[in-house]
């Protein structure tokens, strides 16, 4: 390899490393990738100016300082963040002691390892696309390191990657997986995940609405529900301190009896837990594998500490109430109220006095709320003390949090046990993929009131702005807040189409690639008739799959080579094969005369046929006139038809 070639390849390696590490800016403390970039730039400058490597001392300092800073920053060098950051710094340091061809190869191998690390943080299709890009860049650098001509190198790279792609698919499908989702790894800080907050004070959910970030998907088997039925329950807030709702999480297991005997809806959800809980349609009847339906009708995963994305099945009955027996103590718990918001408490007590029947009282409460002239908006004025009073009697503007909070306080004041339920309402149906996409902006809060032995859902928001529930948040915002700067109303038609396609891609990706876990693998093995995922079966499937993939590939490559052979080569090779097949000791270098000499052991007719063929061959191949394509085709047909009889053993 020439020095200039190595120089070019070195730049390619450094550039590929920079590309590979780029997504880590999103996941690591910003200064770590920055230091990495500086180390690479340092090395690139040295290559550029053809200067020698820095002295060991400088290198040690350049590496020890950032590592020390990393320790101070994260307090660890292992785990997801610490480990990746540490690795990144080490690779950067390695670049500065890379001189020989072999060193560059080692650095490149580290690059391949590094390319996988962004997946530890994010497994979206975008990350996968970036990984593909990284693979291309790294392979390209590898091709350049191997001394390939720079102009040919992109094509060589693309070809190499394309040829290896089928094998990659086989390995992905067949290699045994650890139980649990792909790339799961413990994170350092719990709760850094996006989603619902663990408490509710007016304003928190409002901030989420502008975000159209997809949060989970649901796929119904059989009949599709109506949008107004889609109350995705996640958490329950049952404690109020006057401004903030939180979950007390009393561990009171109890069985749940459902009212109504409607046909349950069956569906699969792919979601990440929110504060440990998973979305489920009200009212859940039966939870599938890996999830449990428990206290306060909340769904959580069996291994509660695992916060990775999960695919699970649930059965629900679309109903607005469920039966639950509360004892005195519990009823008292759901009636607790602080002394704040006196006007609301007064209103509740007044209504309670007029309507002794709980069911009638609940109706009266709803009617009263509807008559207060409240307005649904995403940008209500901020409220200081006595937030519920301020909302109900002064500002009269708010969104679901204000409504549900106010109604729950009102109900408790009126002597009805009540609580706030937080989750998502609605969703967008993807007509191509036939699944529901639920976004951050679908987050919602509503109340549950315990009347006559049943928890009944009261969506106070719907009392005021029913279109929020019937038509979904997109339409509601279009009417209610047409000039919201952040939301900008409904996107145009084509953008919606693009959005749906992207959702579909995302959904398929989550479902088929990220969600391909041990269970799906077992399923697939069974469908393919391979049986259990055991070591022997995996080896079998691996070998079979590789053969399945590599044989056509080999055939393609060989055929390609054959296609490039000239007619003369084919004629000569087939002729040799025929004679060898007849049992003659042909060697590759034999000339026509030598073949004829070997053929002395053939039958007379075969000898003569061979002589005629060889004569034609010599004339076309070496004669002064040469041969045109037609003559060659003629000879080719004859050679293919030539099948000499096998010779016996030498006497």
């Amino acid at each position, binding site marked *: 390899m020439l020095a200039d070639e190595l120089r070019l390849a070195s730049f390619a390696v450094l550039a590929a490393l920079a590309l590979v590490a780029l997504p880590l800016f999103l996941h690591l403390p910003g200064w770590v990738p920055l230091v990495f970039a500086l180390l690479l730039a340092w090395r690139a400058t040295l290559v550029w100016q053809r200067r020698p490597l820095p002295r060991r001392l400088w290198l040690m300092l350049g590496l020890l300082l950032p590592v020390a800073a990393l320790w101070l920053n994260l307090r660890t060098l292992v785990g997801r963040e610490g480990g990746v950051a540490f690795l990144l710094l080490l690779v950067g340091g390695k670049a500065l002691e890379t001189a020989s061809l072999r060193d560059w190869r080692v650095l490149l191998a580290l690059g391949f390892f590094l390319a996988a690390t962004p997946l530890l943080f994010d497994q979206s299709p975008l990350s996968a696309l970036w990984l593909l890009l990284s693979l291309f860049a790294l392979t390209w650098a590898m091709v350049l390191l191997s001394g390939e001509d720079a102009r040919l190198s992109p094509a060589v790279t693309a070809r190499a990657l394309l040829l290896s792609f089928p094998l990659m698919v086989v390995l992905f499908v067949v290699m045994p997986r650890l139980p649990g989702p792909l790339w799961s790894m413990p994170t350092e800080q719990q709760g850094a995940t996006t989603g619902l907050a663990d408490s509710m004070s007016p304003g928190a959910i409002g901030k989420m609405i502008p975000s159209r970030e997809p949060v989970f998907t649901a796929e119904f088997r059989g009949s599709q529900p109506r949008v107004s039925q889609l109350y995705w329950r996640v958490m329950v807030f049952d404690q109020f301190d006057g401004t903030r709702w939180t979950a007390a999480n009393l561990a009171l297991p109890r069985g749940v009896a459902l009212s109504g005997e409607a046909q349950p809806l069956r569906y699969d959800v792919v979601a990440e837990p929110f504060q440990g809980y998973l979305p489920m349609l009200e009212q859940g009847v039966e939870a599938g594998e890996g999830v449990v339906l428990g206290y306060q009708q909340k769904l959580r995963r069996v291994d509660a500490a695992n916060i990775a994305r999960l695919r699970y099945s649930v059965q629900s009955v679309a109903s607005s109430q469920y039966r639950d027996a509360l004892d005195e103590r519990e009823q008292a718990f759901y009636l607790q109220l602080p002394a704040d918001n006196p006007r609301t408490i007064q209103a509740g007590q007044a209504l309670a006095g007029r309507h002794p029947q709980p069911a009638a009282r609940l109706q009266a409460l709803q009617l009263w709320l509807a008559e207060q002239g409240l307005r649904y908006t995403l940008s209500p004025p901020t409220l200081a003390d006595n937030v519920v009073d301020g909302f109900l009697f002064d500002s009269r503007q708010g969104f679901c949090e204000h409504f549900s909070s106010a109604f729950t306080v009102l109900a408790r004041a009126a002597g009805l046990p009540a609580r706030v339920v937080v989750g998502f309402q609605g969703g967008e149906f993807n007509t191509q993929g036939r699944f529901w996409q639920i976004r951050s902006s679908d987050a919602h809060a509503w109340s549950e009131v315990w009347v006559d032995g049943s928890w009944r859902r009261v969506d106070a928001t719907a009392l005021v702005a029913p279109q929020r529930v019937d038509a979904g948040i997109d339409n509601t915002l279009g009417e209610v807040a047409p000039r919201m700067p952040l939301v900008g109303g409904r996107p145009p038609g084509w953008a919606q189409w693009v959005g749906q396609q992207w959702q579909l891609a995302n959904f398929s990706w989550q479902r088929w690639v990220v969600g391909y876990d041990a269970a799906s693998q077992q399923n697939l093995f069974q469908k393919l008739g391979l049986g259990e995922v055991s070591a022997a079966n995996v080896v079998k499937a691996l070998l079979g799959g590789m053969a399945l993939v590599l044989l056509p590939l080999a055939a393609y490559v060989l055929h390609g080579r054959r296609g490039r052979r000239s007619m003369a080569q084919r*004629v000569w090779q087939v002729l040799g094969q025929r004679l060898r097949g007849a049992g003659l000791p042909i*060697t590759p*270098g034999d000339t026509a005369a030598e073949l004829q000499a070997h053929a002395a052991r053939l039958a007379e007719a075969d000898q003569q046929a061979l002589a005629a063929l060889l004569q034609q061959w010599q004339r076309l191949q*070496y*004669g002064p006139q040469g041969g045109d394509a037609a003559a060659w085709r003629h000879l080719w047909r004859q050679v293919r038809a030539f099948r000499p009889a096998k010779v016996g053993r030498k006497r």
Partner: protein
Amino acid sequence: MQSITFAYRQLNALILGKPQQTRLALACLLAGGHLLIEDVPGVGKTTLAHSLAAVLGLDYRRVQFTSDLLPADVLGGSVFLPGEGRFEFRPGPVFAQLLLADEINRASPKVQSALLEAMEEQQVSADGVTHALPEPFFVIATQNPDGQRGTFPLPESQLDRFLMRISLGYPPADAELKLLQGGDRRQVMHKLTAALSATDLLQLQQQAASLHVSPALAGYVLALLQATRQPELFLHGLSPRAGLALLAAARAWALLDGRDHVLPEDIKAVFVPVAAHRLTPRLPGSDSSALLLRILGNVALA
């Protein structure tokens, strides 16, 4: 063509049991190349050279190379003529149509290179005057195998000047018996008649050079050349000049067969004599000829 066949037949009557070697020698001369015969003494090297000159009707000189030979003994030198008061160039034995340089590796390198230069340039320069050598001009050199005492082996760059190197080897038993009974072969040589003139020979050489070489055949030659360039076989592979020499020899060989085009058979026939002396095997002790035969067996025609 008849004349050359006649010449060939006469040679074989004299050199018994060596039809391949005599044919190679004839082909070498037809291709206009110089011939190196390498063998132990007494197997008929000189006889072959002498009889070639006789049947081809060439003016023949012989120089026995010894360690004290000087270049002027071969090339000729200026002699002072006292009567006329000037120097005159007296041509040496190299000014012959066929020069037999016997035991060339006994002479000092200085003499060897003087002769080989003359062979390459087809001329001799002395005292600032260039004297052209006759046409046709052939050198048949004989040498004892390396390792014999008192020899200066020719370096590769000079061996390259010879189109072919052949060995006669011991004659087959029946031929040798006939030889033992038949008396001195040198007596027989006087009975040889010239089958063709120098002009005929030049014409035949031109005819040989014009034989058709198809692209496929050139491709085959290229494949052979490339096969010799595998680093594990020889120190250096064959040069392009060796490739041209191979084609020239094969053309002459094809002409002897009476064909108007060259076949791979012709290439194979001359390959070892043309190539072996130009190559040094990578492994000491291995034999160029054997390696070349292996290449011939493995390189496919197409």
